[in-house]
C-alpha cells in the first residue's frame, strides 16, 4: 500500500507543502518514512532524530494536527486512526520553524531558566554525603523526572498559541512541579514564586498537553499540583489564587457563585474597575445584574460537607 505524506516544508524564506509517496512496510514509523524519503527521494528534506527509542525527544513532529514522536508512531496505526492513506506532517506547533520539521528551542530554554530549574538542596545536605529522602517522598515527584523534553505538550497548548510570553511551556511546569515537590529542596517557594510570576494561573486547563504527552506525564496535573502548592505554602497573593479563594468562599457561604463580585475579589478593586466597560456590556445584554441578591442554596449544609470531605481527602 502506498502512503502519501504531505510534508510542510520551510527552507530559508520559502514555505510550501510537498507530497511524497512511500510504500508501507511492516513496522514502519513516521521516522522511518522520513528517513526513506531523505535517502531515496529527496536529500533536502530536513528533520532531527537521534535515539529512535522514544527517550531523547529529538524527533517530535505533528501528524494530522497532533504531536507525535516520529520514532514511536507507526504509519499503519495512523492510517487506521485517521481512516486515510494521506497524512500531513508538520513541525511542532508553538515553535519557530528553523527548517522543514526542525524547530527552535532557544526561547523554551530561556523561559525554563526563569524557574531556577535545578535543585537547591537543604543545608544539611552536601556534595560529599549526598541527600536523604524517604521512599514516599521520592514517589511524590519521581514520574516528573521522566520528561524527555520532546515538546509535544507545548505543540498543542492553547494558552501558548494565544500568548506564550506571559506563560511557561507545559514541560517547564512539569519540571517546576518536580522541583517544588522534591523534599530535598531547601525552600520550594524559590521555584514556586518564580512559576507564579511566570504565569502559573494562566493555564486554560484544556488538557491538550496531557493528551499529547508520549510519556503519559500529565503536565496539566503538574500545573494543578503547583496550584495546590501555592495554598499549602501560603503564596496566595496573586490573581489566580485570589480567584480560586473567591470561588471557594462563595461556594462555602452561599453554595452559589456570585459572578458580579468575582472580578473584584480576584483582581482587587482598582484592576477590576478597568473591566467596567466589559461589565457594562454584560449588564446591557442582561448577563449580569449587580443588584441581584444571590440566594443561599437550600442545601448549603450538604455542600459544606462535600467541601469538608474534599479537604480531608487531600
Amino acid at each position, binding site marked *: 500500500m502506498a502512503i502519501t505524506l504531505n510534508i510542510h516544508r520551510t527552507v530559508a524564506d520559502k514555505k510550501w507543502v510537498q507530497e511524497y509517496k512511500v510504500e508501507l512496510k511492516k*513496522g514502519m514509523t513516521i521516522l522511518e518514512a522520513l528517513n526513506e524519503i*531523505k535517502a531515496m527521494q529527496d*536529500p533536502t528534506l*530536513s528533520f532531527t532524530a*537521534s535515539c529512535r527509542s522514544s527517550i531523547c525527544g529529538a524527533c517530535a513532529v505533528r501528524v494530522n494536527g497532533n504531536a507525535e514522536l516520529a520514532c514511536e508512531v507507526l504509519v499503519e496505526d495512523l492510517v487506521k486512526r485517521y481512516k486515510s492513506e494521506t497524512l500531513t506532517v508538520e513541525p511542532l506547533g508553538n515553535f519557530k520553524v528553523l527548517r522543514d520539521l526542525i524547530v527552535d528551542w532557544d526561547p523554551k530554554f530561556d523561559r525554563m*531558566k526563569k524557574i531556577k530549574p535545578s535543585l537547591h538542596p537543604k543545608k544539611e545536605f552536601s556534595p560529599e554525603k549526598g541527600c536523604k529522602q524517604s*521512599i514516599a517522598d521520592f514517589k511524590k515527584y519521581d514520574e516528573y523526572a521522566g520528561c524527555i*523534553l520532546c515538546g509535544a505538550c507545548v505543540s498543542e497548548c492553547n494558552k501558548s498559541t494565544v500568548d506564550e510570553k506571559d506563560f511557561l511551556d507545559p514541560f517547564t511546569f512539569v519540571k517546576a512541579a518536580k522541583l517544588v515537590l522534591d523534599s530535598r529542596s531547601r525552600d520550594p517557594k524559590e521555584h514556586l514564586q518564580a512559576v507564579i510570576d511566570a504565569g502559573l494561573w494562566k493555564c486554560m486547563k484544556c488538557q491538550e498537553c496531557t493528551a499529547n504527552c508520549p510519556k503519559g506525564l500529565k503536565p496539566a496535573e503538574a500545573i494543578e499540583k503547583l496550584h495546590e502548592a501555592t495554598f499549602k505554602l501560603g503564596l496566595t497573593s496573586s490573581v489566580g489564587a485570589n480567584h480560586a479563594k473567591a470561588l471557594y468562599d462563595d461556594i462555602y457561604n452561599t453554595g452559589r457563585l456570585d459572578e458580579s463580585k468575582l472580578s473584584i475579589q480576584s483582581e482587587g478593586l482598582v484592576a477590576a474597575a478597568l473591566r467596567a466597560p466589559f461589565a457594562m456590556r454584560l449588564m446591557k445584554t442582561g448577563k449580569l445584574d449587580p443588584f441581584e441578591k444571590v440566594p443561599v442554596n437550600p442545601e448549603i449544609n450538604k455542600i459544606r460537607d462535600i467541601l469538608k470531605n474534599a479537604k480531608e481527602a487531600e
Partner: protein
Amino acid sequence: MAEQISRRTFIKAGVAVGAAVAAGTYFEWQGNNIPAAVQKGTALYDVLIIGSGGAGMRAALEAAKDKNIKVAIMTKLIPTRSATTMAQGGMNGCTGVTDSKDTPESHAFDTVKGGDYLCDQDAVEYFAENAGKIIYEMDYYGYPYHRQEDGSFHQRKMGGSSHARAAYYADESGLATVHTLFEQCLEQNVEMISECQMLEIVVKDEKLSGVIAVDMRSGNIVSVPAKTVIVATGGYGRAYWIRTTNPYSSTGDGIAACLNIGVPFKDPEMVQFHPTGLAINGVLLSESSRSEGAYLLNKNGERFMKKYAPDKMELATRDIVARSIETEISEGRGIGEGLNAAVYLDFRHIPKEIIKERLGQVYDLSLRFEGVDITEKPVPIRCSCHYSMGGIDVIDYKTCATKVPGVFAAGECSCVSIHGANRLGANSLSEVLMFGKTAGIGAPAYAKKVGYVGDKEALNAALAKWNKTFEEVTARTSGPRVVELRDKMAASMWFKAGVYREENQLQEGLKEIDDLIKEYKICYVGDASRNYNTAFMNYIELGNLLLVSKAIIMGAIARKESRGGHSRKDFPKRDDKNFLKHTIISKVGDEFKTEYRDVVITKFKPAERTY
C-alpha cells in the same frame, strides 16, 4: 581621532560585507543558539567542550566552578539529545549504602576481569576509588535516585558485578543523568554553542588554535579560538549503521577530528555487540528479556544455546550469546537474509502477567517494529553493536589529557582505558561523570598555566578551506549518494569486521573501506542550501565513520587473538604473551600506522575469564 577610527571601521566593515556578498557565503544569523562573540569570531574560550552528553555537561559544570574560566559546550544537536539518555541500568560506584561489603577494590577487580585484562589497572583503581563520590554529587545536583528505607539512594546489582553498586532512576538512568546535568547548566548559565557541527580541531605545530564548525541554522562556518578543547562526542557504533543500538549521532566525530591532528585511536577493534537487537532495525531489547527466561531458538525451533553454554544457556555472558547467535546464522540455521538475518527470541512460556509487568518495553518494541505480539509469537532478533570500548588515546587518566597539548577527551569517545576489551553494565554512566569531571579540572588548569598559544592565521585558513569544501561538495550534481556509501560501509563492517573476524575477511573489508574512502571524495550530497543542511551534516558524519571503520579493521587485523569483544575465528584463544597490549592507530597523512603499548598491570594478574 575618534572620527578617524570610526571612518576606518566603517570602510573595513563595508569591505567585509562586500566580500561576503561577493563570496555569497555569509548568511544572516538566526536566533541565539550561538553567542554573538562566536558569530563575530571574537570569542576566546579557556575550555571549549565538544559534545553535550553526560561527559560534556559534567566537564562544563566542573570547569564553570571557577568564574574566571570561560567555558562553552558545542553540540551538533541541542543539549539533551545525546546517547547518554539511552543508558538504562544505572551508575556503578562503591558507597556501601546498600551492600556494606562492597569495596573499591572489588569494583576495580570486576571491571578488570570484565574487560578481559585489557584495562589499565592504575586508571581502573582511580576510577573505582572515585566513582562512589560521583553518585553522592549527583544526589546533591538533584538526581532522582530510587531510595531505600534509610533515605539513602538504593543500589542494584548488575551483570558482572560482585556487589550491588549501581544507583539508578527506573530503567531510564541515563535520561535522568542528562536532565539533572542540563538543569544545572541552565541555572549556572553555562554557554551553549548549540546546533553546531564540529568540522575540525585546528592544531599547527602541536599548538592548539581552536575549532572550526558549521552553524546548522545559518550554514555559516565559524572558527572558535580556544586554549583547551575537551572532546566528548560519544561512541562510534554507527560504523555498523542499522546493526547498532546507538543513536544516529554516534558517528565518531571527535575521534576522527583527533586522528587528523595526530592523536591516536586506541583499541578501535574493541566494540561490544549486544546479543538481542531487533532484526529489523537493531533497536535494543533489554537484557531483562533473557534474565526473565526468554529462549533463543533457531529456525528449526531448537534452543541452540545448549550447544554453546549447556549450563547457563541463555543467561551466558553477552559476548558468548552474541557469538552463538552469529554461528547459527552463518551455518544456515537462521531466518531471513543479509543484515536482517536473525534467530528467534521466544517468550511464549512466560506468563502474560509477567511479560506485561516486567517486560513492558520489550513487548511494545516488538509489537511496534516487528509487528509481533511476544505473548503469541517469537520475535526475530540479532546482535547489534552496542558500545565502543576503544577511543581517543588519553595518556593521563588524572587529567584526561591526550598527546596533543590542550586537547582532552572524556566519555565514550575516549579510551582511558577502564573498559579494556569489554565494558561492564553501569560502568559507562559512572565513566562519563567521573572522567567528565576529571577533564573539567584538567583542562582549565592547563588553560591557566599555558594560555592561548594558537595561531589565528591557521584558524582563518581552515575556515576558508571549509567554506570552499561546503560550496564544492554541496554543488555536485552527481556521484554516489551518501546513503549508498553508508550502507555499503555498514555491510562491509558487519560481514567483514562484525561479531566474528578472520584474516581474509578483514583484508577484504579493509579494501572495501579504502574503496569507499575514494568514492567518498566524489560523493553526491544533494542539498546546496546553507539553511540547516542536514544532508551536509550526514556527509561529514560519513567521512568520520569511514576513518573510524578503517581503524577498527586495522586494529582487528593486527590483534591476532580473541579477547572480550574481539573474536578471531582463526585465533580463538586469548594470547597474553603477545597481546596484553593496546592497539594504537595513528594517521600519518592519508596512511594509518599501527603500534602497541603495554597494558598497565598493578594488582590483578591476568587469569582466565570465567563466570
